[in-house]
C-alpha cells in the first residue's frame, strides 16, 4: 500500500512551524509597516449616499458578513452607511427575482446561469465588462476577465456581455477515488481518463471482488443527480453539440443511435452487472455523500468540491484516502457555479462606483490586490473562484495537509480549466426538461422503458419545450 505523501504528525509540526514563523514575520512586518501591499489610493468621498445592499441565501452568512465588514473597513465606509447584508429565505433565485421585479433596492445579488439570462433581458442586472478603475473602483474588469476560467466566461455572457464575477465555481461530475481500496486492488495510480475507460476499469475491479459494488454513480434522486449525470457524460465525450444545437433555443441533437444511447448502454450494463448499488435511485444528496464516505466503493462520480468533505475525518471513513482523477484526455464534469451580479437601478455616479467596488471586492480582489474573499471561501469551504487562489501558499498548506495529496489541488485546477458549461442551461426550458429527465432516466433500470424509448421521450420533450420557447418569444 502506498502511504499518503505526508504524515499527520509531520504535517502538524509543519503547520505549527509555518504559523509560528508567520506570526513572527507578521509582527516584524507590521512594525515596519510592510505587512500588506500598498493599497489603492483611499476614496476621496466618504462612502455611498446610502448603505449598499447585498442579498444572500442561507449559506454561511457569518463568512459573508465578515467579508462585507472588511469591504467597509478597506473603503472607509462611515458607520451609518455600512453595507447591509440581506438574508433571503426560501428558494434564493425566486426570492431574489421577486425583489428585483418589484424594484426593491438591491445592489449585489447571487445569480445562476439561467437567472443571469432572464435578469439581464429584463434589465434588472447590468453588464460589468466595461467597468473601469477609478478612485473608488480599484480594477479594470478586463484584468479579471483575462484570468477567468473559460467556462465561467461562457456561462455568464449574454449577447456578448459579461454579467458577473464568480462567487463559486465547481466541476460537477469528476471521478473521486478511494485510494485505500485501489491500493488493495493493486491499481494505485492507475486511473481511467475517459468515461468509457471508467466503465472498463469498473468491470476489472468488480472481477476482483474486493467490494460489493465498485462504483457509486451520481444517479441519485435529485434534480442535479441523474439528469446531470446523463448530460455531463454525453457532453464530456462529444461536446455540447452531442446534446443540443449551439444557438438559442438549443434544439436537441441527441437521439437514438447517437452518443446519448451509448452512454445509457454503459449505464444499463453497470446496473445489470451489479456494479452499482440499486438503492442509488432513491438516495438524496446527503445519503449519497454518506454512502461513499463508508469507504465501500472504488469510484464516486461527484463534484470536486466534495474532496474536502470526504477527506474530513469527522465526516468520512476515507479521510486522507480520497483523491481525484485529473484531466488527461477528456474534460470531466459540468460547471456548477454562481456569480455576484450588479443590480441595475438609478444611482448617482459615486453610488454606482461603490457598488462596482463591492462587486470587485467580493468577486475578484480587495484594495490590496489580494483575492481576499475567494481565498476565504477556499480556506473555509473549499469553494473555488480564481486559478491564482490555488497558488496561494496558505491555501496550499492547509489543503495540502487536509487532502490526500497536495497535487490534487492542481488536478482540481486542471479540471476547472477544462470543465464544460451545458449551453442549454441558458434556456428557460432546460429546468423543465431536467424534471422530465429525472423521471424518465431511472425507467431504463426499473424495466418500465427501453433505452430507445427513454431517449425518444427525452428528445421529443426537449424539442417540444424548445419550440414552445421559440414561439413564445415571437
Amino acid at each position, binding site marked *: 500500500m502506498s502511504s499518503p505523501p505526508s504524515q499527520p504528525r509531520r504535517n502538524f509540526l509543519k503547520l505549527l512551524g509555518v504559523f509560528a514563523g508567520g506570526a513572527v514575520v507578521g509582527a516584524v512586518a507590521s512594525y515596519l509597516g510592510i505587512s500588506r501591499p500598498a493599497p489603492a489610493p483611499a476614496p476621496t468621498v466618504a462612502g455611498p449616499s446610502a448603505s449598499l445592499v447585498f442579498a444572500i441565501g442561507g449559506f454561511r452568512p457569518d463568512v459573508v458578513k465578515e467579508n462585507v465588514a472588511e469591504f467597509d473597513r478597506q473603503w472607509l465606509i462611515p458607520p451609518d452607511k455600512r453595507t447591509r447584508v440581506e438574508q433571503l429565505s426560501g428558494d434564493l433565485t*425566486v426570492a431574489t427575482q421577486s425583489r428585483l421585479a418589484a424594484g426593491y433596492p438591491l445592489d449585489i445579488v447571487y445569480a445562476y446561469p439561467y437567472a443571469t439570462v432572464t435578469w439581464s433581458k429584463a434589465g434588472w442586472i447590468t453588464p460589468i465588462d466595461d467597468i473601469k478603475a477609478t478612485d473608488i473602483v480599484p480594477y479594470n474588469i478586463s484584468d479579471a476577465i483575462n484570468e477567468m476560467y473559460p467556462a465561467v466566461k461562457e456561462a455568464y455572457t449574454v449577447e456578448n456581455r459579461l454579467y458577473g464575477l464568480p462567487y463559486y465555481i465547481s466541476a460537477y461530475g469528476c471521478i473521486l477515488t478511494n485510494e485505500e481500496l485501489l491500493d488493495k486492488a493493486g491499481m494505485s495510480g492507475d486511473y481511467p481518463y475517459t468515461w468509457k475507460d471508467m466503465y472498463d476499469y469498473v468491470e476489472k475491479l468488480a472481477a476482483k471482488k474486493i467490494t460489493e459494488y465498485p462504483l457509486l454513480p451520481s444517479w441519485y434522486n435529485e434534480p442535479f443527480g441523474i439528469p446531470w449525470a446523463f448530460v455531463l457524460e454525453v457532453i464530456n465525450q462529444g461536446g455540447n453539440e452531442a446534446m443540443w444545437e449551439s444557438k438559442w433555443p438549443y434544439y436537441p441533437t441527441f437521439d437514438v443511435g447517437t452518443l446519448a444511447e451509448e452512454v445509457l448502454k454503459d449505464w444499463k450494463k453497470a446496473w445489470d452487472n451489479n456494479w452499482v448499488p*440499486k*438503492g442509488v435511485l432513491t438516495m438524496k444528496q446527503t*445519503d449519497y455523500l454518506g454512502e461513499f464516505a463508508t469507504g465501500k466503493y472504488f469510484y464516486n462520480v461527484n463534484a470536486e468540491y466534495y474532496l474536502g468533505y470526504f477527506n474530513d475525518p469527522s465526516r468520512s471513513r476515507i479521510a486522507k484516502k480520497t483523491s481525484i482523477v485529473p484531466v488527461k484526455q477528456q474534460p470531466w464534469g459540468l460547471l456548477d457555479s454562481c456569480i455576484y451580479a450588479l443590480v441595475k437601478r438609478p444611482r448617482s455616479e459615486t453610488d454606482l462606483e461603490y457598488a462596482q467596488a463591492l462587486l470587485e471586492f467580493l468577486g475578484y480582489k480587495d484594495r490590496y490586490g489580494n483575492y481576499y474573499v475567494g481565498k476565504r471561501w477556499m480556506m473555509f469551504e473549499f469553494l473555488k473562484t480564481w486559478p491564482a487562489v490555488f497558488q496561494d501558499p496558505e491555501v496550499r498548506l492547509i489543503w495540502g495537509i487536509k487532502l490526500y495529496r497536495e497535487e490534487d489541488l492542481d488536478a482540481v485546477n486542471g479540471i476547472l480549466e477544462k470543465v464544460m458549461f451545458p449551453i442549454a442551461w441558458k434556456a*428557460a426550458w432546460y*429546468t423543465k426538461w431536467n424534471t422530465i429527465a429525472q*423521471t424518465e432516466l431511472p*425507467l431504463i433500470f426499473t424495466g*418500465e422503458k427501453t433505452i430507445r424509448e427513454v431517449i425518444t421521450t427525452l428528445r421529443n420533450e426537449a424539442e417540444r419545450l424548445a419550440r414552445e420557447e421559440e414561439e413564445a418569444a415571437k
Partner: protein
Amino acid sequence: MDWWLVLAQLLPKRKLTDEQFAIILVIPLILALLALNIYPMVYSFWLSLTNTDISRGISKFIGFINYYNLMFKDPYFKHSLRVSLQFTLEASLLAVALSLAFALILNESFKGRRVIRTMAILPWAFSTYAVASLARYLFARSYGLFSSLYVYLGLSDTPIEIVTTESAIHILALLFAWNYVPLGAFFLLAQLQIIPLDLYNQARIDGASAIRRFRVVTLPFLRRPIAIILLLFTVFSVVETTLIIGFTGGGPGRATQALTYWAYAKTFMDYEYGYGAAISWFLILIAMALGVLYYYVLNKLKL
C-alpha cells in the same frame, strides 16, 4: 386623536343588541380567516386558471386549459393519479385500523398504562419531515437499522435493499400510519372512555363473547369517530407531500410519484405556478370525492 376614539364616535350611539355585539367580536376572526384561508384559496384557484410560469415571466388567463392538459395531455398524470389513490387508500385504511387497535389496547387496564399512553403519542410529535429523514436512515441499505438487522439475524450475507419499486409505496403508507396513528387512537380512546361499563356487563351476563361485545357494544359508539378519522386521514394522505419528497423523492424510478409530488415538481422545480395550482385543486377534488365515498359506504354498511 387616537383612531379608536374616532371609530367610537362613528359607531351608533344606541345600545348594541347581543347579536350585534357578538358580530363585532367575531369580525377580527372573520378578517383573519379571510386573510389566511379564503384569500390564499381563491388566489390559488385563480392561479390555476392562468399559465403563470415565473421562469418565463408569463401570466395570462387561460380558463380551464391547465385542467384539460393535466387530465388529457400530461403523460405522467395517469401514473401519478394511480400512485396517489393507492397511497391514500393504503395509508388511510392502515392508519384507521391501527388507531382502532391501539385505542382498544390503551383502553384496557394494565400495569404501566399511563406510561404506555404517554409513549404512544410520541410518533405524532414528530414532524413529517423528521419521520421522512429518520426513515431514510432506518431503511438505508448500507448503514440502515433494518438492513443490518437482516444481516445480523443471518437472513442474508450482504445488506439488502428494502426500498424497491415494489415496496416503496407500502413503506410510505406504513410511515404515514405510524405518524398519524396516535391522533386517531386518542380520538377513538376518548370515545371508548364514555361507553357505559354497564353495557359490557350486561353483554357478559348474556354470554356475549369478546368479539360479539366489540361488535354490538363498542362499534356502534365508534361509528362516527371512525368515519371522522377516516375522512381526516384520507384528506391528510391525499395531500401528503413532505413524506414523499423527504423519504423517496418520488423514486425509485417513478414508483412513488404521487400527484402531490408532481404538483411540487411543476411548481417549485419548473416554476409553473399555474399548472401546479391546477394539480393542487385537482387533489382537493379527489379528497372531497373520497370523503363522500367513504361516508356513503360507512352509512351503507351501518358501521
